[in-house]
């Protein structure tokens, strides 16, 4: 099962964190820092797998990650998952984000955290993979957007709000 999905940038700023096991908020933040520390010190062109940090369960868990431009996508998984399969899953996730946001970049993740969560929710649920077919995922996201659009104009309030 997937224990956690973390996205952070090259400086370790978290851009998305999703834990499928319960940790205290404090521990979650520590896990993010620990994971960043482990992943960021690795060279490019080394392998995409490493043993998980102590906080998330040590060597029983693996961190499987990809580094895209300014962002690290890290999946922390237990031994029941195929390493290469998860790498593919990360790729599907990123390709899906790219389609949804049209050339996704870090800023999209910052300003649309809720959308990113939604897209992820169409792929992974409770730590297990729900769907791997990108077109299917996008169809779901699209239909949600349509519903949102149909509601948006009702709420779009013209006043300046903060």
């Amino acid at each position: 099962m997937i224990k956690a999905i973390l996205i952070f940038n090259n400086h370790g700023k978290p851009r998305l964190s999703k834990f499928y096991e319960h940790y205290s908020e404090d521990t979650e933040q520590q896990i993010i820092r620990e994971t960043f520390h482990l992943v960021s010190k690795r060279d490019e062109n080394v392998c995409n797998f490493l043993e998980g940090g102590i906080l998330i369960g040590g060597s029983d868990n693996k961190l499987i990650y990809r580094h895209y431009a300014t962002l690290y996508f890290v999946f922390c998984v237990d031994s029941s998952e195929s390493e290469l399969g998860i790498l593919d899953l990360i790729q599907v996730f990123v390709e899906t984000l790219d389609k949804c946001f049209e050339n996704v970049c870090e800023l999209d993740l910052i300003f649309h955290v809720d959308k990113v969560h939604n897209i992820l929710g169409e792929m992974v649920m409770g730590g297990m993979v729900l769907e791997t077919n990108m077109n299917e995922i996008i169809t779901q996201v699209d239909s949600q957007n349509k519903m949102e659009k149909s509601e948006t104009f009702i709420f779009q309030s013209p006043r300046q709000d903060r």
Partner: protein
Amino acid sequence: MPAVSKGDGMRGLAVFISDIRNCKSKEAEIKRINKELANIRSKFKGDKALDGYSKKKYVCKLLFIFLLGHDIDFGHMEAVNLLSSNKYTEKQIGYLFISVLVNSNSELIRLINNAIKNDLSSRNPTFMCLALHCIANVGSREMAEAFAGEIPRILVAGDTMDSVKQSAALCLLRLYKTCPDLVLMGEWTSRVVHLLNDQHMGVVTAAISLITCLSQKNPDEFKTCVSLAVSRLSRIVSSASTDLQDYTYYFVPAPWLSCKLLRLLQCYPPPEDGAVKGRLVECLETILNKAQEPPKSKKVQHSNAKNAILFEAIALIIHYDSEPNLLVRACNQLGQFLQHRETNLRYLALESMCTLASSEFSHEAVKTHIETVINALKTERDVSVRQRAADLLYAMCDRSNAKQIVAEMLSYLETADYSIREEMVLKVAILAEKYAVDYSWYVDTILNLIRIAGDYVSEEVWYRVIQIVINRDDVQGYAAKTVFEALQAPACHENMVKVGGYILGEFGNLIAGDPRSSPLVQFNLLHSKFHLCSVPTRALLLSAYIKFINLFPETKSTIQEVLRCDSQIRNSDVELQQRAVEYLKLSSIASTDVLATVLEEMPPFPERESSILAKLKKKKGPGAVSVELEDGKREGGELNGGGERGDTPAMSASNASTPSPSADLLGLRPAPAVGSAPPSVGSLLVDVFSEGPAAASAGVNDDGFLSGRDLEQPPETSDALLAEGPGDSDSAPPPAASEEPAPPLPEAEDLLNKFVCKNNGVLFENQLLQIGIKSEYRQNLGRMYLFYGNKTSVQFVSFSTAVSCPGELPTQLNLQTKTVEPLIEGGAQVQQVVNIECLTDFIDAPLLNIKFRYGGALQNITLKLPVTINKFFQPTEMVSQEFFQRWKQLSQPQQEAQKIFKSGHGIDTEVVKAKLLGLGTALLENVDPNPENFVCAGVIQTKGQQVGCLLRLEPNAQAQMYRLTLRSSKDTVSKRICDLLSEQF
């Protein structure tokens, strides 16, 4: 069109995020956040009712703040309100908030559950999915109670939309994981299994995770999934890359699903149905073939997906461990990957090979890659990969390559990454011990280890080398010489000083004849290190000095001088001071005889599980234990297959108990609290001398004089050691239940006979219980693992087991066990270790009584524990002439036992050979003039004596008869082995 259009978001949120991003310092950011939190709080608390949009905006801001790592302790109520909205956008944000900030506030859970209930019954697929997601994310017990009944219905209902089915499957899985007791599959089982046939691949993808988990827990109920999974897999594997449309990923059809199907199959043994099995083997072959085809795309994603399936297929082949052909192909494939340019593939190949190495079919094939693996250890840039290479070397190590592998690992240690050094050290120490043929090599290896990576050599490692040197007198002289030489180095590690101090203190006399290592030279060498060492090491050295006084009376005055000097006798450390005072006194007033008794050589340590192995397991966690067990399996395989007799001091145990190092390592109790035992005795005497000097210091009473009474019984040492041996308090049999143990089952004798020539297997099985056995023997010691498996889904209570020795067996065999947990959950397995020591030869087998309650009824079973005298055989190789010479020597009538009997299963030379090897003897070729005959030789090792045994088995193929003749120096042994073996053919 992009699915998410930028710019239609909430302006206030965007502004807030920009503000945060523009903050120049952490302080500014916190300030801005606190301001916002105050703002939101006041908005939420304010009188004015907020509209949905504002609530959504504020909740989004809270989410963002939470992501930055700040605690959010309010807003939950507003989020719950959003759930009840019938606007999708609001509902969705509400659910998101709840999912991200899980809160077990029960008040709130009830409200959330209410909203979920409404959405589940709304028949709006989007709302249903949101609700299911929320349940899966929170997954609390309250939620399980509320929805565990409802979700299976949604999952299998004919009119449920595919996307909802997918969510329902994973939601159910989550609830099952949190509260298995609440999710009752019963009536749904078959329909859930048939989801594997669903037309929608997404549904299959989600359902397979559920089915895999359920199968692991209830394999029998779900076993129909095997044939369905095979046919699904076969359809995917044989489909063209375009058949599956969107589920084709970079020209590979449904890679994720294929992997998951292969994983599911790994929950089961190979299919029994020939057709299903044939189809599966075909699939596996196709997958292996495809790996050799030219890639359909140059993209890394293509090869990734293809190889993901390949690795899972290989994992399944290894799991089955029954198709030698496939195993060898798998091994060759992995061999290719070992040199692949993709680091990921090299990593995975090393990892898979580790498991392959434990299969008896492929162990040899794996070994052919040794050079590549060693090269990987030396040249890989990536520490993760190097670590896997080290793991694989460890796994592929056996007697034939141990020296090479240990040497490579040692040389790698000099440059190894700090993060893996300690583990490497442990592994080297274990391999060196396990495969030590000559113990001088072992001593060299460990001393090298200390020299190269002294800082990483844990206490366990140097304790162990001392234990082994003490227990093997053939290596003591060599050890003394080597350690003396090692100490010559100008800078040597403190661990080296400890080993040196201990060994020279015990065995310095063995090298004292050489003027270059005369007693005084030895002493001066040790003492030159003294001032650089820590307090515990100095304490150890002081004890070594007093031992020197005993070994070499000529050093007495020099050493007394040292003890007497202020830096010792007035040392500010109370332990050192006390030792100096007491040793000085002891050496000056005790007679030579008394000294010799008090400072006697240490008695051998009781053999027990290598503490190093326990340490490795502790370090690596449960994962490593399984490696060790597999390791054990392989060893066991060798034993059964007739390889070398297990000379494995480091027996693998999986229930490694690791009490404090001193207790475990040395087998010594803390110093007996007699007389004026110093207060610090517990902490400082954790050195290897704890028993010796403590006994000595116990002799010093408050006045500082030795009382005669104490000295009359000084050999506390050996007494205490024996007391720790078999039969001490913690090995008492479990408290007897009120019911008398049942008499042995009628078939107990037959079951016993099944194990005469093998060490592992299933001892007993009925509808409730399965008892498996793994055992290892070495010389007169053995260790047996009993695995009690509950085959039912109901727990066994009041489970207890008792091992007993009937008749005169207690004087012949020493057995030690620990009690097992009184509860075995349905489907679970517990294990028990029995340590066995053979005191003298024996005939009867120990009894094992098992009692438990199943559904209220008491089950009471007594079996014979398959411990037979032949387990303590050491094979002996000899040539023809020698054999017959000895044969003649054992010519007295009572030394021989003979039986003529009819063959039970026909005469098959290979089977006979395997059995004779399994018996534990060496099968001697070219000894008997008649090549049809089998002759064997071995020595039975008991504590008291060794009994040489010669065996001759003459088959008569025509008459289907055998004549078996045994000759040994002891009549009872000849007879017993003759009886045992004649039942085997």
